[in-house]
């Protein structure tokens, strides 16, 4: 009897310890280690680009993923669309129209655990004043075990015309495909 109680106690203690080790909250994204990249397709050719500047703020506790939230503010002016010529072009009215819409944002609405280190992020993405619901699967891992930086890797595909990105002559998806793959690699420090 005593023995049984002891085993039960030991079990619950280790369970507690396990939860305790994982219950680290992650906050500020490290901008020098995080990346938001995208791949567009021009005449059948994948062309990589990225946003050099963005601010990601998130609250994530691996023990309570449902309570997680994320906010991302992208600076479309910091875009690297693959060439100097393209960078000049995308600032203009048919593309991001930066004068009127200087930022693009993502605000999460839910995070669902998918099992293991996989999760699913849902939220609203606003580009050029147009808001769409998006769903993005991602993985979470800790660098160097518990207490280390949290690393979020994920991505999704959006249709640029849903956001009126590339209007007028550029709306021809035979030249620049409608689908754009977005990938994010966000590294965050544990919240102290």
């Amino acid at each position: 009897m005593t023995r049984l109680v002891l085993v039960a106690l030991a079990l619950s203690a280790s369970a507690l310890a396990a939860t305790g080790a994982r219950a680290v909250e992650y906050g500020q994204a490290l901008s020098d280690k995080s990346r938001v990249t995208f791949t567009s397709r021009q005449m059948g050719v994948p062309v990589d680009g990225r946003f050099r500047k963005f601010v990601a703020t998130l609250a994530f506790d691996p023990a309570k993923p449902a309570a997680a939230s994320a906010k991302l503010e992208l600076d479309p002016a910091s875009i690297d669309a693959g060439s100097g010529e393209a960078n000049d072009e995308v600032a203009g009215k048919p593309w991001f129209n930066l004068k009127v819409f200087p930022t693009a944002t993502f605000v999460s609405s839910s995070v669902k655990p998918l099992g293991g280190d996989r999760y699913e992020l849902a939220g609203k993405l606003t580009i050029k004043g147009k808001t769409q619901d998006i769903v993005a699967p991602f993985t979470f891992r800790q660098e160097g075990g518990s207490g280390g930086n949290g690393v979020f890797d994920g991505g999704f595909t959006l249709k640029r015309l849903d956001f009126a990105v590339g209007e007028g002559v550029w709306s021809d998806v035979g030249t620049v495909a409608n689908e754009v793959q977005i990938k994010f690699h966000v590294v965050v420090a544990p919240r102290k």
Partner: protein
Amino acid sequence: MIANRYTRTAIALHWLIALLLVGLFAVGLAMHDLPLSPQKLKIYAWHKWAGVGVFLLVLVRLAWRAGHRPPALPAAMPGWQKTAAHGLHFALYLLMLAIPLSGWLMSSAKGFQTVWFGVLPLPDLLDKNKALGDALQVAHMSLNFGLAALVVAHAGAAIKHHLIEKDDVLTRMLPRMRPSPGMPASPDKNR
């Protein structure tokens, strides 16, 4: 006389490649200064696809040439002219291969893969590197001006042979417009 002609295949390849080269050269000169537009992306893509096509056609032509020796130059030609003609032909072949290669490498270095007709991706032999891309652009352009100069010399020599020496150097590379009297339409199909 009949034996001193290029084969139909060699003639067809010569003129097809010549047409493509003239077109590619003109388009290549013009497209660089176009403002960015879907049209420009299409023109660049087609320029690259046609360039890959020329490269392959030149390989086919070299393979054909290996099995079908070109007719000998006129016996009356001075030795130095024969040497010059062979040297010029060699340089033309070399440039016809080097130019598409330089274009392909330039494209890779500039971060734009070549996907033939939007379907067949060619490997990127170089990583994206702006300085290297710009250097290869200069190389691609210089090789093209070199080729243009050689083509002018090549065509000029052929015309000189036709008008001054009055030999068959030009006509043996011309497609036969109509069969000679009393001859069937294609007596030398296989040559």
